[in-house]
């Protein structure tokens, strides 16, 4: 029986596992990201967010488990799956000796797109992210926030159906952050799916309609944002789930006077 295409999740992860030496970084993670959702992935440092997202996007080979994007198994159809996914990785370098325009063009051409389409979209994206004034500047000379935006433009140029963004708002100024959120909301409204990982609970609570809390390589809670947070704020719920909150004002010597 063929499944109803609107019910096939944008991203379905099951039993995903990755071990680095002794450390089990991701431990049998199951996650379903519905199509058209704005999905937040939150967790403390070292929880396995980046590792999970890398495996979900075909950048890191899992030890076990499956990942499918719109019903397509990622690891057995890498090229086809990558065409559907736009990725913003945290902590990887860019080809920063290219100018902004060259970098976005490069990303487009690498995906096998036509030159004319690439040129048009590159111009659109640079304008969208307020980068057209610096399109001729080398990316290495960009500020951290501008670098984030140009990387986001690279992730968008091939018009993916699923956007996977690792820490997209880190070091982005409030105005640019709001602009990026608008763009992402527009993308979701048009039927696309966005997954963001973040530490900023307020932001995720306001921005995302779905959320998953991940810690120590396991999913602690997952569902719509309202389901997960219940009657409290997402931040309180997160602290309750993850634990480790300490009460007190720090040692005596740290208090001036």
């Amino acid at each position, binding site marked *: 029986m063929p499944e109803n295409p609107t019910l096939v999740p944008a991203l379905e992860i099951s039993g995903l596992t990755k071990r680095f030496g002794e450390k089990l970084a991701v431990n049998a993670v199951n996650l379903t990201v519905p199509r058209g959702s704005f999905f937040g992935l939150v967790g403390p440092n070292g929880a396995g967010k980046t590792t999970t997202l890398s495996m979900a996007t075909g950048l890191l080979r899992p030890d076990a488990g499956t990942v499918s994007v719109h019903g397509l198994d990622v690891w057995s159809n890498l090229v086809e799956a990558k065409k559907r996914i736009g990725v913003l990785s945290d902590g990887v*370098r860019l080809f920063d*000796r290219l100018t902004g325009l060259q970098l976005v063009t490069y990303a487009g051409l690498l*995906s096998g797109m036509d030159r004319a389409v690439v040129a048009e979209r590159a111009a659109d994206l640079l304008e969208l992210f307020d980068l057209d004034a610096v399109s001729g500047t*080398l990316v290495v000379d960009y500020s951290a926030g501008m670098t984030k935006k140009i990387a986001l433009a690279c992730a968008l140029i091939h018009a993916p159906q699923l956007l996977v963004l690792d820490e997209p708002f880190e070091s982005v100024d409030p105005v640019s952050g709001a602009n990026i959120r608008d763009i992402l909301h527009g993308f979701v409204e048009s039927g696309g799916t966005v997954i963001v990982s973040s530490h900023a609970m307020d932001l995720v609570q306001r921005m995302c309609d779905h959320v998953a809390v991940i810690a120590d390589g396991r999913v602690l809670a997952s569902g719509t944002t309202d389901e997960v947070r219940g009657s409290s704020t997402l931040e309180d719920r997160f602290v309750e789930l993850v634990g480790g909150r300490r009460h007190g004002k720090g040692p005596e010597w740290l208090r001036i006077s």
Partner: protein
Amino acid sequence: MVAHLVRLRFRLLANALTRSPWQAVAVVLGTVYGMFMLFLVVVGLLFLSSAPDSLGRTVSVVGGAILVLGWTFLPLLSSGIDETVDPARLATFPIPITTLLLALAVSGVLGVPGIITTLAALATSLVWWQTPLVAIVALLCAAIGALTCVVGSRMLAALTVRISSGRRAREAKTVLVLIPLLLLGPAILALSTLFRELRTVLPIIADVVAWTPFGAIWAVPGDLAIGRPGTAVLHALIGIGTLIAATAVWRWALDRALERPATSTSFSHTQRGLGWFAIFSGTPTGAVAARALTYWARDPRYAQSLISVPLVPAIVFFYSGASGDLSGLLFVGPIVAVLLGMSIYTDVSYDNTAFSLHLQSGVSGRADRWGRVIAVSVFALPTTIILTVASVWVSDSWERLVGMLGISLGLFITGLALSSLVSGRFAFAVPAPGDNPFKSRPGGGFTLMLSMFASWTALALLALPEMVLAIIGFATFNQSLGWISLAVAIVLGGTLLIIGVRWGGKLLDDNGPEMLVQLQRQK
């Protein structure tokens, strides 16, 4: 504090080595090699003790000067500057500059090269063991000399790495450093003529070098041994003055580097339009080629790998010019062909984690390989051909032109094939983007050298047919063998290139994620 910083250096080294067992193996092999060299030096010096005092003096002056020069300038050319403890990272801690200076000097001496140099320097006192007083002076001078070596290398590191803030200025400085390296050619001319009359000339060189900052300190015991205490005092003063001056310059450079940590926010370079991207075809292959060519022009790490290209003809020309036989020039084409063909050996390693863009976009390994091959060929193929033709022209051996082209092109194309294959699977420890291109990672150079050596051997075997054909042609004055060699070079080399690109591309397709993990480890 000093001990603490020195411990930090070893902690960092140990941690780096446990992360990568191969690097550890490389460091061990490097140490064994160093010990072997040290053994040879000690044996040589023991023999010298029974030779005339003037010979002992000459050898220690020239050897010592080479040691100081090598320490100061050679890291730029080959092994790189050890930055296990990067002073810039310590900028936020309240460490007095004198303490930092002392800690860096001590940790420099306590590295493997430092220990071996110090032992070798101290071993120069063996020359004078029959006159104990001179031997004791020699020990003191050797300590000063070894320290000068370390301080010299640190001084140049501090001067070149972060003297000024701003990426542009730093890169410009890197290129400035390259210029004296290019002038090595003429220097080698002078040396090669001198080596001819080594026995008569060497003492004269030693006498001259003994008055330079590099050789002065090493001359002191010799001066005493041949009964010239006045000269000995002067040499000692020059030597000690050198150490003090080098330390002062180093201190000044380090102070400046710490006061102005590198922050690059200069919007100096802007470029309208797409550059190479507008010229190459709008396919993934064309895009990779355009990107790679842009990097060849903009990234100083690539410039560093091209230093040797103008250097080879210069050295060979001056050398053969000195001997009056220009046929040695015929080696220029093949040597440059090998260097250029293998120059994309570390291409993916240079990309560092930026390579993840290739992985994300799902570009095929084959397009990746071809793009890099095309980019380097754009300038390397004409360079190889021009240098080969030029060498035939200058040495006036036109009858060998076709055969020489066969050898050079064969080596170049086969080199491309091999590096396309190897760089599709292995990432090497190379300087990261934006780093000082001369910076080394512990053991990194050695691992790279080992695999390079293996690849050179493979290259020699794979390009054997065209080389043998051409050489037989030269020996028998048979022009048609030259043409056959050229044809074999193009057909066999081309086939190998296609195999190398496809195989390397397949490896990259199959192991892309593993490659990224390797690259992340280098970060």
